[in-house]
């Protein structure tokens, strides 16, 4: 196959492009086929070295290098005579050169491949002028920046420093830590000077700092040069080795490519790296040995710096603190200026307390956990053991420092560290816990975390401090420990551990209340609540007597607070919860009178706190507490058959639910509370036989449920739980309407709920109760169709719900559901009988018989009796001809319960008529 035109062009282009411009014409004339010549010529016109596709990471010398490569010893460049080459790097070459006037030696930097002219030249000159303003003994001066017109090469003449690279100097002179720190402070001074002149170095590293042989002054080279030559941010322009050399000194913002974040604090970070290297004799904060470029960058961005004091233990304390403050990944947490860094170094050298606070490990860990929501529990464990280690190490440091307590500095340091332990044990542990508690499999990590916090708390307590705030904080932390170990949603199920934590907290609260320090209302409240939590643990262990005792103790503690602090907002509510809980415990002990009294007391307190609440949120919180209590009381009375009392409680419940909804109209939970109140009232009415009132309440519930579900019913993933509540309300409503003989209304209600059923039907495999709802819907629909003599439609309705029934019967059959199944089968029998399919109808009778038997076995109320009767009637009707089918319908669909005898009479009459006709 012939080569394509493009391929031929490519071959010619590649050949031509390497030729010097002068020879291209000849090449075109001699070697290029005529048909391609014009196009090739055109392409060559567009050829350029540094266009938008110029490849980076060029491991061959850039094409424009010859300009610099031609520089030889003795040559003149921009008025300087080149003496010898000092070195070459990715960016260019450095020569020692001589200037005539004034007569001096300079370092002459010539940059590779930089084209001159236009905007670039102007910028170059502008930058050079700025650099020229830097006048500091710690900065190698820029003598001149210019462009050699003849050669077309930009150059930079700098003060020639006769010095030794920083690390070599330190090694050669065997400097001790203090001498090294002194050097660092002086380097920071120079950096600060440049920052004041508006120049950022961006590429500060030991190789860029020489220590002058003459006066042992450190001098920074190449200040601002990276930027001037536009190469600072372009990692890939230099060769790999050099890239890595630079990368290891990069700040996280540079490594992450967030160039807009580079500012003077980037140099502060670099000073931190410099200090780290100088103090460890060449180690770097991030070990990037053997990593590729991008892995190295990621490591700088992703991981915290190695601890200086782990590499050099004697630097633990202030020195490590200072260096690591400079090395903070977030700029805002570093020293905000080079001067601040220098100051702290000098404070340390002058034995003054430093400004920096150690970056607490918990801060880093909680940040880490916050960033990594997908963190695995295993990783969390690893990190937490790290934290644990650090906390213990910190503690040991405190003990050591205590021994030397005469020294004020040591004392201050000890206090600072005590503060850290305190913060860790009383706050950080719980913050981290909250961050990780949702992670699957985090139980081990959480337990370890709590154990670390536990140890720290024990040690804090050993302080024997009289500081009431400290005692308070520690007590709160103990309670918290207890809750997380055994008394909270995410608890670890260690109730024995929890008990001892709560008891420790109680001891502390008691100490606090006994002391002179004015006790706060919250102290009483918290002590009481700690007793309350212990009571909850007793309840878990089914020890009702112990729970009662604890709750009474809690009340004793809290009650005096009510009078002492009449304005306190939380106390009545907290105490109210305790009374309510006591009421339930008493109820379980079957001490109903006492129980009701306790609950009433709780309710009164809840109402009191409702009055004291200032914000809507608080009000809603207390209202919800009242709702729970009234609901509970209502259920209690209902179960005992006291419908009057039940109605009163439910009405109160409804009233509060309406109030909450008015306060927070958008809260879904409150709205469904409202619907539940209506349903409970409907239940009371129904029990009384007041079907009209029941229907009204059910309609209210349905309206709420429907509007709740409507919020996202049209979305791709509607909230199915809400949809199922909507469907259930629809079914109760339509059922009541049917019972009241309002078939048209029932039909309308069912039609309104059709969407709910359609939304739920695809998901019946997930949840059994949804399957039951779908069966119940089909029953109602079929019954309504039969009333319209649409047996075909009814059969279709039942047939469609077949899978739902199979699913529903596949699991447990909670109370009432078997009735739904029996209704379903009976309706199918009746429908078939209406359609003249008597044989098939009769075949289903055994199934109905089986279900009826099961219902009778399981439910010992009156209703099954009439149920059985209905079965007999149905059976009898089916024995007759199809003319008795209507009677059969009547037998199943007629009123049940009290009205069953009426139905029986009618069915028997129908049967008799059918019998006589047959004769």
């Amino acid at each position: 196959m012939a080569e394509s035109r493009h391929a031929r062009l490519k071959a010619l282009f590649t050949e031509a492009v390497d030729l010097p411009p002068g020879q291209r014409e000849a090449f075109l004339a001699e070697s290029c086929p005529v048909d391609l010549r014009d196009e090739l010529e055109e392409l060559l016109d567009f050829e350029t070295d540094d266009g938008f596709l110029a490849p980076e990471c060029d491991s061959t010398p850039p094409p424009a290098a010859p300009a610099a490569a031609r520089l030889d010893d003795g040559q003149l460049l921009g008025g300087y005579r080149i003496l010898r080459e000092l070195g070459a790097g990715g960016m260019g070459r450095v020569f020692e050169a001589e200037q005539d006037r004034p007569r001096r030696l300079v370092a002459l930097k010539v940059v590779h491949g930089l084209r001159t002219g236009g905007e670039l030249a102007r910028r170059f000159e502008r930058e050079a002028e700025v650099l020229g303003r830097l006048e500091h003994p710690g900065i190698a001066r820029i003598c001149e920046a210019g462009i050699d017109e003849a050669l077309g090469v930009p150059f930079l003449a700098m003060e020639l420093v006769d010095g030794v690279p920083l690390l070599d100097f330190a090694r050669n002179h065997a400097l001790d830590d203090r001498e090294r720190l002194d050097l660092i402070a002086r380097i920071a001074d120079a950096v600060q000077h440049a920052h004041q002149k508006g120049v950022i170095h961006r590429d500060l590293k030991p190789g860029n700092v020489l220590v002058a042989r003459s006066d042992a002054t450190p001098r920074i080279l190449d200040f601002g040069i990276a930027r001037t030559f536009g190469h600072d941010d372009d990692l890939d322009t230099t060769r790999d080795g050099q890239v890595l050399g630079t990368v290891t000194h990069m700040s996280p913002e540079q490594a992450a490519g967030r160039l807009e974040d580079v500012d003077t604090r980037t140099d502060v970070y670099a000073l931190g790296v410099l200090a780290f290297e100088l103090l460890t004799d060449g180690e770097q904060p991030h070990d990037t040995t053997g990593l590729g470029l991008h892995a190295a960058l990621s490591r700088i961005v992703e991981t915290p710096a190695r601890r200086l004091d782990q590499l050099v233990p004697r630097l633990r304390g202030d020195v490590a603190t200072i260096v690591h403050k400079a090395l903070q990944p977030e700029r805002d947490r570093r020293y905000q200026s080079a001067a601040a860094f220098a100051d702290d170094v000098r404070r340390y050298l002058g034995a003054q307390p430093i400004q920096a606070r150690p970056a607490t490990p918990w801060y880093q860990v909680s940040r880490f956990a916050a960033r990594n929501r997908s963190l695995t529990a295993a990783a969390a464990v690893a990190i937490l053991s790290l934290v644990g280690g650090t906390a213990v190490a910190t503690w040991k440091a405190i003990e050591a420092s205590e021994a030397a307590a005469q020294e004020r500095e040591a004392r201050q340091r000890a206090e600072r560290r005590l503060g850290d332990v305190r913060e860790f044990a009383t706050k950080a542990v719980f913050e981290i816990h909250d961050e990780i508690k949702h992670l699957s499999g985090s139980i081990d990590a959480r337990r370890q975390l709590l154990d670390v916090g536990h140890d720290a708390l024990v040690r804090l307590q050993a302080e024997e401090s009289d500081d009431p705030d400290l005692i308070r904080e520690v007590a709160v932390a103990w309670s918290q420990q207890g809750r997380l170990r055994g008394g909270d949603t995410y608890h670890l199920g260690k109730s024995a551990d929890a008990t001892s934590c709560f008891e420790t907290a109680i001891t502390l609260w008691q100490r606090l209340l006994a002391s002179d320090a004015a006790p706060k209302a919250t102290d009483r409240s918290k002590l009481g609540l700690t007793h309350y939590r212990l009571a909850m643990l007793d309840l878990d262990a089914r020890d009702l007597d112990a729970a009662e005792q604890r709750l009474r103790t809690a009340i004793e503690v809290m009650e005096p607070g009510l009078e002492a602090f009449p304005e306190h907002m939380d106390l009545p509510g907290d105490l109210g919860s305790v009374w309510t809980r006591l009421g339930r415990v008493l109820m379980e002990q079957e001490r109903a009178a006492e129980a009701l009294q306790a609950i009433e007391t709780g309710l009164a307190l809840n109402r009191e706190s409702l009055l004291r609440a200032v914000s809507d949120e608080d009000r809603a919180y207390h209202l919800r507490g009242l709702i729970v209590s009234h609901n509970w009381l209502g259920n209690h009375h209902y179960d005992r058959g006291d419908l009057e009392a039940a109605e009163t409680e439910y009405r109160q419940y409804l009233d509060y639910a309406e109030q909450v909804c008015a306060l927070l109209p958008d809260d879904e939970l409150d709205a469904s509370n409202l619907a539940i109140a209506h349903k409970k009232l409907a239940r009371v009415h129904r029990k009384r036989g007041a079907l009209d009132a029941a229907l009204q309440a059910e309609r209210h519930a349905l309206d709420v449920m429907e509007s709740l579900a409507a919020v996202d019913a049209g979305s791709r993933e509607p909230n199915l739980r809400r949809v199922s509540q909507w469907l259930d309300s629809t079914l109760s409503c339509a059922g009541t309407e049917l019972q009241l003989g309002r078939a048209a209304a029932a039909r309308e209600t069912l039609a309104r709920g059709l969407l709910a059923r359609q939304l739920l039907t695809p998901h019946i495999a997930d949840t059994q109760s949804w399957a039951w709802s779908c069966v119940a819907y089909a029953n109602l629909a079929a019954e309504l169709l039969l009333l319209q003599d649409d047996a075909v439609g009814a059969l279709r309705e039942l047939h469609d719900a077949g899978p739902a029934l199979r699913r529903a019967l596949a699991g447990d059959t909670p109370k009432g559901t078997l009735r739904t199944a029996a209704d379903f089968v009976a309706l199918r029998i009746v429908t078939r009988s209406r359609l003249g399919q008597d044989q098939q109808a009769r075949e289903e009778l055994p199934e109905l018989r089986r279900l009826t038997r099961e219902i009778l076995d399981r439910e010992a109320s009156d209703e099954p009796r009439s149920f059985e009767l209905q079965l007999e009637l149905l059976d009898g009707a089916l024995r007759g001809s199809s003319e008795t089918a209507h009677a059969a319908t009547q037998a199943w669909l007629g009123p049940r319960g009290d009205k069953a005898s009426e139905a029986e009479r009618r069915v028997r009459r129908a049967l008799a008529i059918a019998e006589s006709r047959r004769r």
Partner: protein
Amino acid sequence: MSGERPDPLPEVYTELRAVAAGYLRRTPSAAPTIQATALVHEAWLQIAKHDETRWRSRTHFAALASKVMRDVLVDEARARKAAKRGGDRQRLTLSGLSPETDSPDVDVLALHEALERLAAEDPEQARIVELRFFGGMTGDEIAETVGVSRRTVVRELKMAQAWLLREMTRDGDPSDG
């Protein structure tokens, strides 16, 4: 081994798009110059840290990212074009080199269109351009990804650049046509 892992393209595509779109949003509209290297780098840091094992290498990732970046940038450019139609047309430009060098700004849409034509002539060359320009990959990385020598990459890019510049110049400004 490699057969077990499904191609991560579909699931990560959305993620990448989000990163790129976020990057574009943060880029001040006054200076809509984006550096592809930094963009892909950021995307890499954001995505690869979730699941490093999902990626054979950064180059594998960048090759994918370059496709996404192209989509995103072209979409963005189209949107801007639509928004600016009638007024002074603001070009979304992208400089493959550092923004501070003198390299010419490139009209992303024009480049995209020219690149489609190049793909018809020489798919591999077009792919190399995509990796370089939209993926911000270095010559070495492209060489590794495509499986050719670095020298070849350099040659291809040089030719492609001249070819594309010529194409874009020839077209003038299609949006005003």
